[in-house]
């Protein structure tokens, strides 16, 4: 397989690849490489944090409101630790495709919660099902404590329905806008009544709160429950199309090519197997066409982990990564709302472009970073005292230049340009780069990663 195609594949399936590894792979065929990628992701490695602090709280002690507030506070902090653990997982993934798909689903089945038990369970369900069967996946999501809380299905009861989940199930999770009527939402909501969960997050179907009368949904009438509704939705080919388009946007191009999508829908609609669908994309010829290479704006996470692929780094204070994610506009575990992050050009504004271009210098060259500590909706007045509108700091980052030197040992400066940058390069910028070929590889790599061109993959 051509080196440039291997790089393209790995930019999209993962976060990039070192020249040393791509050279090794170049002896293999496309099919073998894609099969290997899928096989390496068969395993599921959940992220599990120590949550033993919860044992200190009992139903008895929680009657005291102050204990309850303490629990909430500790749980929130643990969610931040989970966010950090997830980031570190992305830095060192063993199942690369699975992790990239987990990130995809986290911006599809968007959810936020401050209960660490629910958050952990939810995130690992995304990971387990990332390459599995979409039908099972949706059904499992509908029963998670995190989602039952986030979209209020917990409050959806016989006689007093809450339509929030039913609406977003169709609008955001399966069909997209304008594919259903308001009446379909009402009827679907009735089918999801009685869904609830226990304290540790296990699904709890409260039969007394379930509306077991007949419902008419998408022209079908029956005594439907939530799973039945999902089955009826998935009978619609629009569902396979909706997901295929979203996956195409994520892995291939934001400009939809209808004939490519049609083929994806044919593959996906058969049995809603996610792995088969992405495998089909990665072996297709069109995936490697020039118009699809080096044109996607990297998400903040793709940018942060992409730099790590070139120069591995480790933050001394691990929570500082949240600060960087915040400045870049994408904090893991903290989506803006259930519609998720808007991607592509929407990652870029005046502030994020500056932060992005300075990022390699901040991470690898000890450049100063400025951030604001205005606090958020959950901050307390006591935290306010030391807050600063503008705080300048240096992040302590351990950059592993030794690995970089090994990986780029046989790469010439000219080759470094094509190894690190996959987009077309503005002529004036390229002319400047060519003048700088005599710089050390270390400096030159930072220079390359600081370019607007590096924002693309």
């Amino acid at each position, binding site marked *: 397989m051509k080196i440039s195609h291997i790089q393209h594949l790995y930019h999209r399936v993962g976060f990039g690849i070192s020249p040393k590894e791509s050279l090794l792979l170049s002896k293999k065929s496309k099919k073998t490489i894609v099969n290997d990628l899928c096989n390496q992701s068969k395993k599921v490695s959940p992220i599990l944090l120590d949550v033993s602090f919860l044992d200190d709280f009992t139903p008895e002690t929680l009657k005291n*409101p*102050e204990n309850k*507030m303490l629990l909430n506070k500790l749980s929130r902090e643990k969610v931040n630790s989970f966010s950090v653990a997830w980031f570190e997982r992305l830095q060192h993934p063993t199942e690369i495709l699975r992790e990239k798909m987990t990130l995809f689903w986290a911006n599809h089945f968007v959810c*936020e919660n401050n209960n660490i038990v629910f958050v952990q369970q939810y995130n690992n369900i995304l990971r387990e099902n990332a390459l599995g069967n979409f039908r099972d996946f949706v059904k499992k999501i509908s029963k998670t404590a995190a989602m039952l809380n986030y979209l209020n299905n917990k409050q959806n009861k016989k006689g007093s329905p809450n*339509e929030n989940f039913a609406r977003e199930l169709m609008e955001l999770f399966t069909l997209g806008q304008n594919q259903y009527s308001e009446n379909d939402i009402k009827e679907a909501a009735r089918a999801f009544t009685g869904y609830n969960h226990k304290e540790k997050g296990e699904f709890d179907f409260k039969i007394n709160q379930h509306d077991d009368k007949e419902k008419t949904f998408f022209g079908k009438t029956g005594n439907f429950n939530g799973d039945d509704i999902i089955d009826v939705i998935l009978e619609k080919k629009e569902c396979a199309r909706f997901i295929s388009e979203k996956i195409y946007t994520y892995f291939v191009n934001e400009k939809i090519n209808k004939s490519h999508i049609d083929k994806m829908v044919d593959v996906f609609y058969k049995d809603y197997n996610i792995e088969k669908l992405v495998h089909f994309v990665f072996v297709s010829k069109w995936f490697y066409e020039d118009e699809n290479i080096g044109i*996607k*704006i990297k998400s903040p996470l793709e940018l942060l982990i992409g730099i790590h692929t070139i120069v591995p780094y480790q933050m001394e204070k691990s929570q500082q990564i949240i600060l960087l994610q915040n*400045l870049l*506009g994408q904090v893991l575990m903290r989506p*803006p*709302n*259930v*519609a998720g992050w*808007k991607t*592509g050009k*929407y990652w*870029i*504004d*005046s*502030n994020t*472009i*500056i932060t992005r*271009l*300075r990022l*390699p*210098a901040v991470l690898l*060259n000890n*450049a*100063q970073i*400025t951030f*604001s*500590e*205005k*606090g*958020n*909706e*959950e*901050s*307390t*007045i006591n*935290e306010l005292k030391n*807050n600063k*509108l*503008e705080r300048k700091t240096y992040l302590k980052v351990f950059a592993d230049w030794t690995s970089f030197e090994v990986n780029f040992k046989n790469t010439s400066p000219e080759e470094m340009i094509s190894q690190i940058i996959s987009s*077309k390069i*503005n*002529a*004036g*910028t390229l*002319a*400047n780069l060519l003048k*700088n070929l005599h*710089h050390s590889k270390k*400096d030159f790599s930072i*220079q390359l990663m*600081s*370019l*607007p*061109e590096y924002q*693309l993959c």
Partner: protein
Amino acid sequence: MKRRDFLKQTTFVSGMFFVPHFLKAFESFPKKTFSNKKLVIIQLKGGNDGLNTVIPFQNDLYYQERKNIALKNADFFKISDEVALHNSFQPLQKIYNKGYLSILNNVGYPNPNLSHFRATDIWQTASDSNEYLQNGWVGRYLDFIEGKPYNAIEVDQALSLMMKGNTINGLAITDPNLLFKSMYEPFFSNLIINYEEAHLSDHNLGYLYNTLIDTKSSANHIFEKIKTKNSTEEYPKNILGKQLKTISEFINSGLETQVYYASLSGFDTHANQPNAQSRLLKMYAETMEIFVNDLQKNNTFDDVLILTFSEFGRRLKQNKSNGTDHGTSNNVFVIGKNIKKQGLYNSLPNLADLDANGNLKHEIDFREIYATILDKWLAVDDTSILNKSFSKLNFI
């Protein structure tokens, strides 16, 4: 280039900046500005307890439901036979007496959400409570006027959803000098100077370079204007004071910015509310007094409207920790010289008519306030910005 020079570039050591003229070619100004009026938006983050801010001191239900935290006579000052304001608001009394303050009560929206982040999201995007938008109402205002980033400024280092539009985003900035300096690092200048305008098309690479150019042009505009004006007023040394000082300098310098956004957090008073809220309201009121004075001295107050909101109010019934829990509708403060309805815009909430969760019912949809401001103050088509038509109010 020598290694040392390159390191300077990549670490963005400042002190090397210069002001080249090549940029003039790239600079462009907003195509349409409809009004020279300014809007300053302030969010009291965490959910300010409106019932202990604008106090129904004649209402028995207020005292019954708030045995420990109801304010006593010594804690407030009366503005009518039935209504009083928290003592911390005393710095606002002059503003109030001059008729520059309008208090809108019972502001909310149907099916209120009690989560901080979702409620903030609803206020920032101006969505229905069952609708999820990915851009903010100020961002859509920028889209509408085909503005530049500096037309809407948030005093922060990262931009909120409220300020993000479909085609254009506002600018987050805490210090114009810092932004200017970083944009005049040789690294950025080199990138921009070498970018051919012919390629400024709508593909992604072009978009990235364009954003950089726009940022530099905004940094320029702000820096050029701002260097003439430093505020001489003594603002409180707290985080809101610093934000409003920056905003006053921007306004008084004649910056072509229509919307500013600042915030103060800490209002999530689940426990031991009285002291915490008192300190926060004092910070707010003191800052506003100085801000208004500052604008008046510079003859800019006529063109400024200040809108203060909180993502929700708090429940009537206090909790067991001498605090209050998340509620629904709340009061909104509008400060300006040309307020039509001074003082109380409408009557206080009916404490006997609560929703199923014991929360206040709303009377004014917050988007009616936005629609009014967009239409009457910023002179733009509110319907296309809010994606819907809302009835207008009479406060301006």
